[in-house]
C-alpha cells in the first residue's frame, strides 16, 4: 500500500527540516531576533530623508528617557525621596544618567549671556533699543536701583546697559516647575503635594528587548518603596509603553497559543480516541518553525505582534492532517498513505487558496501585515509539507477508531438543514440572508485610528496626563520642519512662523513652542542692534547722572560693537541652548533646516493652516498622516480582497469548472458579507483590521466549500471534516478576540464571525460527483 516515493519522502523532508532547524539556530545565535518597535509595523508615509531624520531626532529622547514625579505632602520628604531613588537608580546600571537636581554652570551661563548680547536680545527689547533709546536707558537706571530685580547673573560693571538682564528675563518659560533653592531640585506644587522632578536616561532605547522590562520592574519596586513613606510616584516614558506592550504580547501569546493548543489537542483526543493522533500537531510545530525562519530571513527580525497574530496559524495548520484523519469515519480500515492520496488534491488546493489569501495581505502598505503574510504563508507551506511527507509515515499502522458521536452530530446538522430546506427553499433563504446583510451593512460604521494598534493601559495614559498637568508640559507629536537656503533665510522663515504661532498662543490654542529664532536673531537684526547701540551715547545721560562713569560706558560700547555676528552653530554652544540643540538639523543638500517643537496643542487642524503659505515651512504630523493612510488602505484592502477572489476562481476552474469555482468562491464572499452585517448589527465598527480578517477568511473558507463539494466519504463525513477544521481554526483566531489590543481583537472577532458563516454556508457548495468517484476508486 506504500509507494516507493512515500518511503523516500519522509527522509527528504527530514533533511529539509534539519536544514531549516540549523538555519533557525543560526538566526537565534544572538538571542531572540524579536522586535517591539511599533513604528516598524505602521506604513511608511514616504517622508524624505530629512523629515525622517527630524522625526527620529524628536523621538529619540522619548524612547530613552523617563520622567518621574515624586510627590509628597511635605516638600522636604519629597526631595529626600527623589534623592534616594535617584541614587538607587544610578546604581542600578540601567541608566546612563539620573538627574534630580539642577547643576547650573553659572560661569558658562555668564559667558553665553555676554557673548550673545546682540544675538539673543528679544524682539521687544530690540525694538525698544532701536525705536526708544531714551526709554531703554530710563529702564536701565530703574533696574539699577530696583531691589527686586537686583540679582543679575552678570555683574553690572560687565554689562552697564543691562542687556544680559533683559535676555535673562525674556527667556521663554512654560510650565509650572520651580527651582527649590536649597536642594536644587525642580519642584511643582499640585493637588496638595510637592512633586519633585526626576529624569533618567537609559543606556539603551525602548526597543531593546530586556531594558523596558527591567526599567518597569525597577519603577514598580520604587513605587512600593515610596508608598511606604507615603510618597507617590508618577512616571511617563516610551519605555513603559514598550514594557507593557511586551508583557501584554507575551501574555496574549500564551493565552492564544496555549488555549488553541490545548483546545485542539482535546478535540483530537475526543474525536479520534488515540494518543497517536496527537502527532497531528507536528505540522503545526513545523509550520511555526518555517514561519519564524522565513520571517527572520526576510526582515532580519520578527515583531512580537507577528508572533501574536501568527500563533493563530496553529488552527489553520492543523487542518491539513485533519483532512485525512477525518476520513477515518468513512475509510475502514484507515491507512495513512491511502487516506493522504485520497485527499491530496484537496489539500493542495487548500494550500494554494490559503496562501493566496495570506499573500494578498502582503500587498497592503502595512509592514505588519506583510510580516504576518510571510510568516503565515511559509508556515502553511511547512505544515503542508510535513503533513504530506512526514506525518503519514509517523501514523503508519495507526489504527484509528474515531468516536461515533461527531458523525452523529454532523448527520443531525444535515438533517436540520434538510428540514429547513423543506420549509424554505434556497432562494427564499438567500433572500432572507441578503435582507439581513443589507440591514446590518446600513448600520456599519467605519473607524480607523493608530490608537487601535496598541492597548495602552489606562493607568499609563492617566499618569502621563497627570504629569503633563502638574508640570505644565504638554509636548505634542507634531512639529514644524523649516528649510531655507541659508541661516538668515531660515531665521526669517522661523520668525514669520513665530508670529503666527504667537497668535495661537494668545488665543490659548497653543501653549507654547520652541524655535531657534528665540535663541538667536537673524544676522540682519544683529546688525540693526549694533547700529542702534552706536547712537546710544546721545541718550545715556541719566546713567551718568547716577554715577556710572562715562569711560566704562564707552569701553562697553566698544566691546559690544566688536562682538561678531553670531550664527546658529555658535549660539548653540552655551548652556542656555540646551533645549534648542535638538532642533537644529544643520546643513542639508539644498541649504539648512531646523525644527520648531510645540507644546499643548488642542487643534491640529489649525497648525496645518499656519504653514500653508509660508515657504519652506512644513508641518510634520505623523499620527495624522497614519490615520489618513489607514482610511485609504481600507479601500485598497477591499480591492485586494476581490482580486484574491478572482485569483482563487482561476485556480479552481481547473478541478471544478467555471460554475463550480464561482460557486465555491461565492460562498466565502457571502460569508464575509454576513460577517460585515453582523458587525453592523453588533454595533462594532468596521476597522481596517476587521477587513483584513475577512480577507483572510475568504481564503480559509474556500477550503470548507471545496471540502463540502468534494464530499469524500459522504456529506456527513465532509461536514464533519469542515466542522473540525472550522473549530480548530476558530479556537485559535477566536481567542485573538480577547486581546486587549483593539486591532488584534478586531481581527479575531471578524475572523470568528467569518468562520461561523462560512461553516453554515458550506453545505451549499454543491456536489462534485466525478471528482469524488475518481478519488474513491483510486482508494
Amino acid at each position, binding site marked *: 500500500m506504500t509507494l516507493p516515493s512515500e518511503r523516500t519522502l519522509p527522509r527528504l523532508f527530514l533533511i529539509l527540516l534539519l536544514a531549516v532547524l540549523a538555519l533557525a539556530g543560526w538566526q537565534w545565535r544572538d538571542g531572540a531576533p524579536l522586535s517591539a518597535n511599533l513604528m516598524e509595523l505602521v506604513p511608511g508615509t514616504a517622508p524624505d530623508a530629512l523629515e525622517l531624520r527630524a522625526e527620529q531626532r524628536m523621538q529619540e529622547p522619548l524612547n530613552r528617557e523617563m520622567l518621574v514625579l515624586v510627590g509628597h505632602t511635605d516638600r522636604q520628604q519629597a526631595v529626600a525621596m527623589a534623592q534616594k531613588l535617584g541614587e538607587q537608580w544610578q546604581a542600578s546600571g540601567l541608566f546612563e544618567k539620573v538627574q534630580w537636581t539642577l547643576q547650573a554652570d553659572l560661569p558658562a551661563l555668564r559667558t553665553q549671556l555676554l557673548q550673545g548680547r546682540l544675538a539673543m536680545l528679544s524682539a521687544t527689547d530690540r525694538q525698544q533699543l532701536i525705536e526708544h533709546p531714551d526709554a531703554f536707558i530710563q529702564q536701565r537706571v530703574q533696574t539699577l536701583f530696583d531691589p527686586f530685580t537686583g540679582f543679575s547673573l552678570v555683574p553690572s560693571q560687565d554689562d552697564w546697559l543691562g542687556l544680559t538682564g533683559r535676555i535673562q528675563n525674556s527667556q521663554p518659560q512654560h510650565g509650572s516647575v520651580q527651582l527649590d*533653592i536649597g536642594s536644587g531640585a525642580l519642584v511643582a506644587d499640585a493637588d496638595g503635594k510637592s512633586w519633585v522632578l526626576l529624569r533618567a536616561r537609559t543606556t539603551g532605547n525602548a526597543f531593546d528587548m530586556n531594558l523596558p522590562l527591567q526599567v518597569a520592574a525597577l519603577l514598580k519596586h520604587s513605587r512600593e518603596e515610596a508608598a511606604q513613606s507615603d510618597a507617590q510616584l508618577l512616571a511617563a516614558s516610551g519605555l513603559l509603553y514598550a514594557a507593557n506592550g511586551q508583557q501584554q504580547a507575551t501574555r496574549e501569546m500564551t493565552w492564544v497559543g496555549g488555549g488553541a493548543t490545548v483546545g485542539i489537542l482535546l478535540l483530537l483526543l475526543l474525536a479520534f480516541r488515540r494518543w497517536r493522533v496527537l502527532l497531528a500537531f507536528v505540522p503545526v510545530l513545523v509550520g511555526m518553525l518555517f514561519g519564524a525562519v522565513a520571517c527572520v530571513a526576510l526582515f532580519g527580525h520578527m515583531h512580537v505582534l507577528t508572533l501574536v497574530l501568527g500563533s493563530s496559524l496553529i488552527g489553520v495548520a492543523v487542518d491539513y492532517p485533519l483532512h485525512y484523519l477525518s476520513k477515518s469515519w468513512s475509510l475502514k480500515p484507515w491507512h495513512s498513505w491511502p487516506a493522504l492520496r485520497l485527499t491530496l488534491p484537496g489539500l493542495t488546493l487548500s494550500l494554494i487558496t490559503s496562501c493566496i489569501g495570506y499573500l494578498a495581505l502582503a500587498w497592503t502598505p502595512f509592514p505588519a501585515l506583510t510580516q504576518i503574510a510571510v510568516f503565515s504563508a511559509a508556515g502553511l507551506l511547512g505544515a503542508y509539507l510535513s503533513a504530506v511527507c512526514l506525518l503519514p509515515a509517523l501514523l503508519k499502522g495507526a489504527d484509528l477508531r474515531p468516536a461515533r458521536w461527531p458523525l452523529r452530530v454532523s448527520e443531525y446538522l444535515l438533517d436540520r438543514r434538510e428540514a429547513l430546506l423543506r420549509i424554505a427553499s434556497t432562494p427564499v433563504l438567500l433572500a432572507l440572508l441578503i435582507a439581513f446583510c443589507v440591514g446590518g451593512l446600513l448600520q456599519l460604521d467605519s473607524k480607523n485610528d493608530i490608537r487601535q494598534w496598541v492597548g495602552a493601559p489606562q493607568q499609563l495614559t492617566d499618569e502621563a496626563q497627570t504629569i503633563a498637568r502638574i508640570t505644565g508640559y504638554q509636548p505634542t507629536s507634531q512639529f514644524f520642519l523649516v528649510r531655507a537656503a541659508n541661516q538668515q533665510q531660515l531665521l526669517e522663515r522661523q520668525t514669520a512662523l513665530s508670529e503666527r504661532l504667537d497668535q495661537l498662543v494668545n488665543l490659548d490654542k497653543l501653549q507654547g513652542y520652541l524655535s531657534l529664532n528665540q535663541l538667536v536673531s537673524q544676522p540682519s537684526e544683529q546688525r540693526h542692534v549694533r547700529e542702534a547701540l552706536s547712537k546710544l551715547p546721545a541718550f545715556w545721560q541719566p546713567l551718568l547722572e547716577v554715577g556710572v562713569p562715562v569711560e566704562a560706558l564707552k569701553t562697553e560700547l566698544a566691546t559690544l560693537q566688536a562682538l561678531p555676528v553670531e550664527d546658529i552653530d555658535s549660539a548653540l554652544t552655551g548652556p542656555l541652548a540646551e533645549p534648542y540643540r535638538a532642533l537644529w538639523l544643520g546643513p542639508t543638500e539644498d541649504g539648512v533646516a531646523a525644527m520648531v517643537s510645540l507644546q499643548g496643542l488642542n487643534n491640529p487642524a489649525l497648525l496645518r493652516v499656519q504653514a500653508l503659505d509660508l515657504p519652506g515651512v512644513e508641518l510634520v504630523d505623523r*499620527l495624522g498622516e497614519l490615520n489618513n493612510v489607514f482610511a485609504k488602505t481600507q479601500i485598497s484592502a477591499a480591492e485586494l480582497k476581490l482580486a484574491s477572489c478572482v485569483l482563487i476562481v482561476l485556480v479552481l476552474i481547473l478541478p471544478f469548472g467555471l460554475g463550480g469555482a464561482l460557486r465555491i468562491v461565492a460562498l466565502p464572499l457571502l460569508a464575509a458579507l454576513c460577517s460585515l452585517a453582523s458587525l453592523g448589527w453588533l454595533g462594532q465598527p468596521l476597522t481596517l483590521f476587521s477587513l483584513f480578517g475577512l480577507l483572510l477568511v475568504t481564503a480559509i473558507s474556500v477550503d470548507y466549500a471545496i471540502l463540502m463539494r468534494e464530499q469524500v466519504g459522504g456529506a456527513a463525513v465532509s461536514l464533519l471534516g469542515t466542522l473540525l477544521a472550522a473549530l480548530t481554526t476558530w479556537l485559535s483566531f477566536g481567542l485573538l478576540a480577547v486581546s486587549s489590543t483593539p486591532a488584534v481583537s478586531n481581527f479575531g472577532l471578524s475572523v470568528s464571525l467569518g468562520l461561523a458563516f462560512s461553516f453554515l454556508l458550506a453545505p451549499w457548495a454543491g456536489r462534485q460527483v466525478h471528482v469524488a468517484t475518481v478519488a474513491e476508486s483510486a482508494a
Partner: protein
Amino acid sequence: MMFSLPPVGAGLPAMVVNDNAGRLKPRGVLRFLASKLAPTVFCVLLVIPGLAQAFDLQQLSDQLAKPDVIHGRFVQEKHLRALPQPLTSKGTFVLAKNHGLLWLLKTPLQQDYRITAKGIARRDANGWQMLPGKSAGAEQNRLFLAVLQGDSSGLQRDFELSLSGDAQNWNLALTPRSLLLKQVFNRINITGGELVSTIELLETQGDSTLLRMQDSTSSQPLSDAEQHDFAE
C-alpha cells in the same frame, strides 16, 4: 487633540508624553535669579523668622516678630567694584505683618514697590502693576508668606546661621548652604537692636549691597493710604 491622545506603542506614545525637563535647566536658574532670590532673601532679612534651635535665636525671632507694623526710612548702597562711589538710593518702607511690604524709593528716582501674597507689584501712572512672571511664582509667594509668618524651615535649610551680641546690639550672619546660592553670594550680615538696622549682602563677584534702615518705629499704625495700597 493630540496632546490628549492616548499614547501608542513604544515610539508613538512617547511623542505624547514627552518630558521637557531638560529645557528647564538653565532657564530655571535665570528665572530664579531674576525673580525669586532677590525678594525672597530680601524679605527673609526684614523679618527674621522663628529660629527655633538656639535660645538666643529664638529670642531674636520673638523680638522681631513682635511689632505688627514697622515704618522707617532706608538707604541702599550698591558697592560695585568698578565704581569709586556706591550707587545710593533712599526712600521709606512699611512692613506690615499681615499684609506685606511697601518699598517706596524716593531718590534718585521715584518708584513704589509692593510685595504681598499675590506677588510683586510696581506702581505706574495706572496704579499697581503686577510684575509679569513674578506674579505667577506661587512657590515664591508661599515662601515669602511663610517667612512673614515666622516659618523658619526655608531659611534654616538654605543658610547656616550664626548669631552674636545681645538683644540690644546683635549681629546675625547667614552663609548659604546650597551650591547654587554659594555661586551667587558669600554671606549676608544683619545687625540690629530692637529692630533690624543694617543688612549687608556680599556677592561672590565682589559687589556688595548695604541696606540701612533708619528711624524704624513700631508705634505707628498703617495709615489709610497704606492700607489702601495693600488692599488694592
